[in-house]
């Protein structure tokens, strides 16, 4: 299962897109990602790219 990116990793991704969040912003984002990323991984397994429904 993918680990939630660190604040430093998130900051690097944001700054590459021209966005400059605060430390508090990044902690709030990490709380979302901690729930979302495992759910998205499960979704990927549920509907893989070659799913016959597509």
């Amino acid at each position: 299962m993918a680990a939630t990116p660190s604040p430093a990793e998130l900051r690097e991704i944001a700054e590459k897109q021209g966005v400059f969040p605060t430390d508090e912003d990044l902690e709030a984002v990490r709380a979302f990602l901690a729930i979302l990323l495992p759910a998205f991984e499960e979704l990927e397994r549920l509907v893989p790219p070659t799913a016959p429904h597509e």
Partner: protein
Amino acid sequence: MSLARLAGALGAGDLSPREAVEHYLRRIEAIDGELNAYITVRADEALAEADALERAHVRGPLWGVPVALKDVIDVAGTPTTAGSRILADYVPKQDAHVVVRLRQAGAIVVGKLNLHEFAYGALTTSPHFGPAHNPWAPERICGGSSGGNGAAIAADLVAGSVGTDTAGSIRIPSSHCGVTGLRPSTGLVSNRGVVAVSPSFDAVGPIARTAMDCALLLAALAGHDPGDPTSVDAPVLPYGELLGEGIRGLRVGMVTSLVDAADPQVAGSIETALGELRSLGAELVPVTVPLLEHAGTIQQAMQFQEAADAHMEWLRTRLSDYGADVRARLLVGLFLPPDVYESGRRGRARACEELRVIFERVDLLAAPTMPVLPPRIGTETVEIGGRETLYRLALIPYNSPWSLAGLPVASVPCGFVEGLPVGLALVGPRLGEPTVLRAAHAFQQATDWHERRPALATPDAGRAAPP
């Protein structure tokens, strides 16, 4: 007075558009200080428009009817704040497509309504404009994001209203405020001139007292708009004329997993309401929706990135001007792996297909609109069956499945628990608005939950006589 009755009284000449507008302006002046439902009141403009209507030769079906709009819908010359600091000074030059259509029908826009910032949340507790208070219990939220709509209709501060719904934003405040709302099929009503959240799921629709009111508003709002890429070229139906056939023989699928997972008292109201549908002649059958538990994840896989895309320029230049919760939610979209969006698209395709198959067996689905009662302002958690959970997570399985598939959903008042309203969701197949509204209307013909009003909405509240 319902919008339908008011429209009838106006048409019969029992009162004038100016008198109707003045009535609601008096109530807003007297009561809205307690509720904060409105961000902008167009008093002078609405009165001038009322006078102009009286001189007009053509009278549309909503001639002289005062309406209010969630403050993401553009009215030329009136601020569209989206409940935000970022758009606080934005004054559009053109009406949204739905405003053009409302004006053609003869409606008068009396004001713009409070909402969750940028329609991206379910609380309507804006850090910029203050919270909207629930008329049934002012210390509690209205729900959202169209929370001002719910409060204004419940407190009789306007005859009808228009909101938006991406993941429940019409249905949630309708449930929490004891009013009737309809999220139409995605694309049936134009989104042009409306601040976007997530274009794959955004839908504009009515919030009013009754299903008939919603039908009359929808007939004015719906229609193909070539200027909106999400608009569908579907026939515009006289929805208000299609409500009278009753629901005998209608097959209603009960989404039992959603009933079972709701607060037991809420579930009790829903079960009573389902019994009422059965007594009206509907055939109730239990239904399992296979992807239900994943629907929220599927919608979020697309929605987070679409919302971030829509806000990208402000994320770069105005980041600190967002409220903390909306800022975090928007930022999330920057950090999702690129294949997440495609997973969401595949998941949505499968969910749509599974629901299409279900609607070969049933005409409607029924479920709680919300699993819980409206929480107190400032509370982030709710308790369901003794277990504490985040409010924003609890609502997702009840709203996302239908948004995901672009289905029409009505929320109708169906009971009270501890003095707070409970809503029943009636879900139809795509473009199945006539069936949804017909069932909602039949339910309201047999019950009086939609007629109950909070104490501050009594006719003499605010010392204003009813029109």
